[in-house]
């Protein structure tokens, strides 16, 4: 799971730094021709920096994303849901592993990345700073958040960096199970007993604002954004992805008789564009900067996991080793 092209930071100079004009031209020509960049290829420092940031934060989102649904693993009702939820959350951990490895190929160690996560320096997808209050919340998350993540991932899988594309290929296969499981779960709840219907409606109402925040605010059109798109690091605008999400999933939500808590939400039949109440971007900013319901808990859990695991890792460490960057 992942979310948001809003993760990119503005470059300090406003311009991208280049080390060598000819190398940059060749680099950009290769990308325009649809070729992939591999770890040992020459790349602009800015490209490396933004990719590390993006892939790292995607990895953090996966490992943190394991926590809201992980809340309900021990309480999943029945074998089928219990097994599926365990497998899904396990997949998130697996995705984190694949993504940290991809980011490592760019030269940042996994230890550094995890340190940045647990000290609050690195961000992760904002949506996971909210709690999964009931079982039905996990169903909504598994369906609609994973749906958003898939839209992001399918776009990014056509990007320019080889290791990231290869990781996303594996991830996309597993995500399709997550989506089906999530949808299946919501369908059972929405078409079930009145208690179940009430639970899933409340969950949807609760999660709709974070879902609308998922793709981030409308992109500022800047030279920086343009460069990132030319380099196929950023693959689509936030608005484009949000529109795609609404187009694919709002009808499916309405089909189940569920109410989306936005009276303005409708598809303009002339323009084909979905109209909606503008999400509260102040709240979004507040939460992503640390003041959400679960930010502290999420990081505290990761810190504890690292702490608890320290003796295990130290027990088997070989101190004479030198660090090697993974290959691909």
């Amino acid at each position, binding site marked *: 799971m992942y979310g948001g092209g809003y993760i990119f930071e503005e470059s300090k100079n406003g311009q991208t730094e280049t080390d060598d004009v000819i190398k940059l031209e060749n680099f950009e020509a290769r990308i325009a021709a649809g070729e992939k960049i591999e770890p040992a290829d020459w790349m602009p420092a800015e490209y490396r920096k933004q990719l590390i940031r993006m892939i790292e934060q995607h990895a953090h989102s996966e490992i943190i994303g394991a926590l809201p649904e992980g809340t*309900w693993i021990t309480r999943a009702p029945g074998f089928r849901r219990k097994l599926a939820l365990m497998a899904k959350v396990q997949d998130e951990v697996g995705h984190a592993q694949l993504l940290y490895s991809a980011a490592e190929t760019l030269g940042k160690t996994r230890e550094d990345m995890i340190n940045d996560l647990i000290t609050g320096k690195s961000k992760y997808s904002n949506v996971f700073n909210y709690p999964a209050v009931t079982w039905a919340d996990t169903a909504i998350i598994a369906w609609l958040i994973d749906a958003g993540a898939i839209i992001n991932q399918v776009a990014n899988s056509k990007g320019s960096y080889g290791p990231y594309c290869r990781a996303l290929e594996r991830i996309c296969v597993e995500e399709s199970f997550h989506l089906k499981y999530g949808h299946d779960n919501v369908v059972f709840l929405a078409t079930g007993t009145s208690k179940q219907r009430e639970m899933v409606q409340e969950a949807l109402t609760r999660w709709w604002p974070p879902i609308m925040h998922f793709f981030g605010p409308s992109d500022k059109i800047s030279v920086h954004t343009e460069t990132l798109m030319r380099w196929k690091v950023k693959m689509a605008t936030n608005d484009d992805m949000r529109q795609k999400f609404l187009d694919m999933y709002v009808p499916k939500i309405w089909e189940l008789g569920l109410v989306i808590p936005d009276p303005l939400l409708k598809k303009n039949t002339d323009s084909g564009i979905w109209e909606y109440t503008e999400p509260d971007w102040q709240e979004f900013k507040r939460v992503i900067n640390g003041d959400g319901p679960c930010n502290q808990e999420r990081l505290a859990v990761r810190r504890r996991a690292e702490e*608890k*695991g320290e003796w295990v890792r130290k027990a088997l460490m070989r101190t004479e080793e030198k660090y090697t960057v993974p290959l691909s």
Partner: protein
Amino acid sequence: MKDLNEIQTTAVKDLLYRIADDQLILGHRNSEWTGLGPILEEDIAFSSMAQDKLGQSQALYQLLNQMGEKDPDTLAFTRSVDEYKCCHLVEYPIGEYDFSLMRHFLFDMSEAIRFNMLASSSFEPLAKISRKFKGEIKYHTMHAITWINQLGKGAGDSPVRIQKALDECFPLALGIFEPSDYEDILIENKIFFGEKELHEKWYDTVVPVLKNANLKIPEIKDPEISYGGRKGKHTEYLKPLIDEMTEVYRIDKDAEW
């Protein structure tokens, strides 16, 4: 072996409940580590094994269902605490990773031997399932042996921790082999070789591994200290576990989830 008579059926069902309940409860316990493991790669491995346990318990409840008991979800999620036949070892909280790994080692080694014995059971449906589990359990024991061996000889406080975990788990593990009321029936009819023989084979298998990992085998003063689980007498840990496990299921008993 053709159809079972009444007492044989009772004996087999008792055996199946014991095995399935162990796997359900331990699988549930081990799933508590998902997302919280000591390193990503091991988190993933441990979660797979927890899923395997749950899948195996489901298959055994399925067999019970075919023998006239209720369906797997009903058996797993609606019985009262004293109706479960799991041993005390699997009920304990996950503790630190040393405890969970040692429990995994001691328990899974017994499972491997148990299913190996059952693979040639005269009760064909059980023999068939046991043969099917062989590969999964083999990985579980490979995993466990590798970890115990490496941590037992590891750096830092690892050897001390692993020894302490062994001291705690070993007496609990003996509860796996608490004999049922039907040992003679199972043995005579070649359905199962019985807990006593399982215990002996288990001891002969785990002790060399533990010694090779530089561990001392704890002295057991009372081998029956952890008995009771097979007869429905459980530790204080089982009820909170069952309450938590069934929390959502119990919201609405008419619901399909």
